[in-house]
């Protein structure tokens, strides 16, 4: 089972947990409907679409409303510390949460209570907190983009906003930034760096790069990183080895993007809808 933890951009949205149902361009949880066009809901939708093809269904989510004030995230952190111990997922993905080192550490303690250790995946704000806490190596997978990789590579930076200028956020500097992130223990066991090329790396260096198909417009489209994290999370939860899941997910996300014939104005929901076809073509070589 895959667990996804994150937020939705609505301050009045209560803490909800449970199974999700994808219908059209919204996901349903309990009696709540959330558009899939951005953030954690895009990640969830991508995971659901992936499960449709690989034949799995079990996704449970922990969601709360937060518009950046942190109030919702902290309620959710507290809930996780009390309930994660009973969770039996084989993979957990933490996503858009207000970065908070203290709460992050408490959640990590709660994960320790789980009977079977899950694969731990972090992206977005929770990845920032994981790096800031000095506990990045407790995670199995981080999925940064190039700007976030520079932040991981900068051992001093508390947030990407404060990444030092000499750590240039450019595609051709990715290999040295990956090395620097591992040198200072600021990377997870695996890194999937999202960009014009996607890089698969571990502490020994870059293990693979995926650079086709390439659609320049993808960089501008909000949520394409979330879909990649959703696909890789679902593949890992379905039993694929992490390194294979990363490669497959990168190829699927790229192909789904291409199938959507994107422009910089394309919305991510159009790409999400192409995930099953892309996955089918790549996994089943149709």
């Amino acid at each position, binding site marked *: 089972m895959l667990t996804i933890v994150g*937020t939705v*951009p609505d301050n009045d949205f209560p803490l909800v947990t449970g199974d999700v149902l994808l219908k059209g361009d919204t996901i349903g949880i309990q009696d709540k409907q959330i558009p899939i066009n*951005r*953030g*954690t809901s895009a990640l969830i939708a991508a995971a659901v679409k992936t499960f449709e093809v690989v034949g799995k269904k079990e996704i449970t989510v922990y969601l709360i409303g937060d*518009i*950046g004030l*942190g109030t919702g*995230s902290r309620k959710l952190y507290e809930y996780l510390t009390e309930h994660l111990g009973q969770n039996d997922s084989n993979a957990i993905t933490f996503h*858009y*949460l*207000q*970065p*908070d080192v203290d709460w992050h*550490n408490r959640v990590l303690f709660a*994960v*320790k209570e789980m009977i079977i*250790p899950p694969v*731990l995946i972090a*992206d*977005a*704000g*929770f*990845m*920032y907190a994981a790096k*800031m*806490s*000095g*506990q990045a*190596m*407790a995670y*199995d997978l981080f999925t940064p*983009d190039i*700007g*976030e990789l520079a*932040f991981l590579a900068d*051992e*001093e*930076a*508390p*947030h*990407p*906003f*404060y*990444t*030092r*200028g000499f750590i240039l*956020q450019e595609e051709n500097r990715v290999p040295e930034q990956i090395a620097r992130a591992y040198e200072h*223990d600021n990377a997870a*066991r695996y890194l999937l760096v999202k960009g014009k090329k996607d890089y698969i790396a571990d502490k020994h260096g870059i293990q693979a790069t995926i650079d086709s198909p390439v659609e320049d417009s993808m*960089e*501008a*489209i*909000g949520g394409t*990183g979330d879909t990649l994290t959703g696909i890789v999370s679902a593949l890992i939860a379905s039993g694929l080895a992490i390194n294979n899941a990363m490669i497959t997910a990168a190829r699927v996300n790229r192909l789904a993007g291409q199938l959507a014939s994107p*422009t*910089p*104005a*394309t*919305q991510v929901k159009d790409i999400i809808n192409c995930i099953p076809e892309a996955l089918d073509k790549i996994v089943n070589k149709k």
Partner: protein
Amino acid sequence: MSFWGFLKPKKEKKSLESGQDRGILVFENTSEVIRAENVLRSTGWKIRVMGPPPEIRTGCDLAIEFPLIEELNILRTLNKSEIEPLQIVPVSSPLLKPVDLFHVKDFGLYLMVRAANMKITIEKKTRLIVNISGGGCPDVPYLAQAMVGKTIIESPVPREIGHTLCGYALQLAYEEVVRQC
């Protein structure tokens, strides 16, 4: 999996008490610090009055420690009371400065500007914001929801509705895209 070793001792800078997610507000004089403290405490912020680190000592022997991620929201709260800090720096490394490099990508009909981890893309002809991407704080989807589909004139400004450092980075990207168009 390496998880069970996560409690192993880490380098000193990474200890759980190192305040990696805290920032420091530096003011011109002590009375400004006291005013800011009163305003922030009365609006519910968890802050701490402290001595400034030596790297940024300017004469005033007090500063305010705050949750760095929420810098944009804190600044807005202070500005409403006409309080302006001299400096805002991370506790972990007081000499760090906000990112000031922009990456501009021209897609022909569209223009994308990135500042730190935040990107904004507009259609040049209409100045319509067509996408916002990057970032990891929860106000990013909120900002995207509020801004995408509006022109840069109609759109709310990240500085006014954002709350975090990601919102702040988007503000810088937004200002640059306005400047370029």
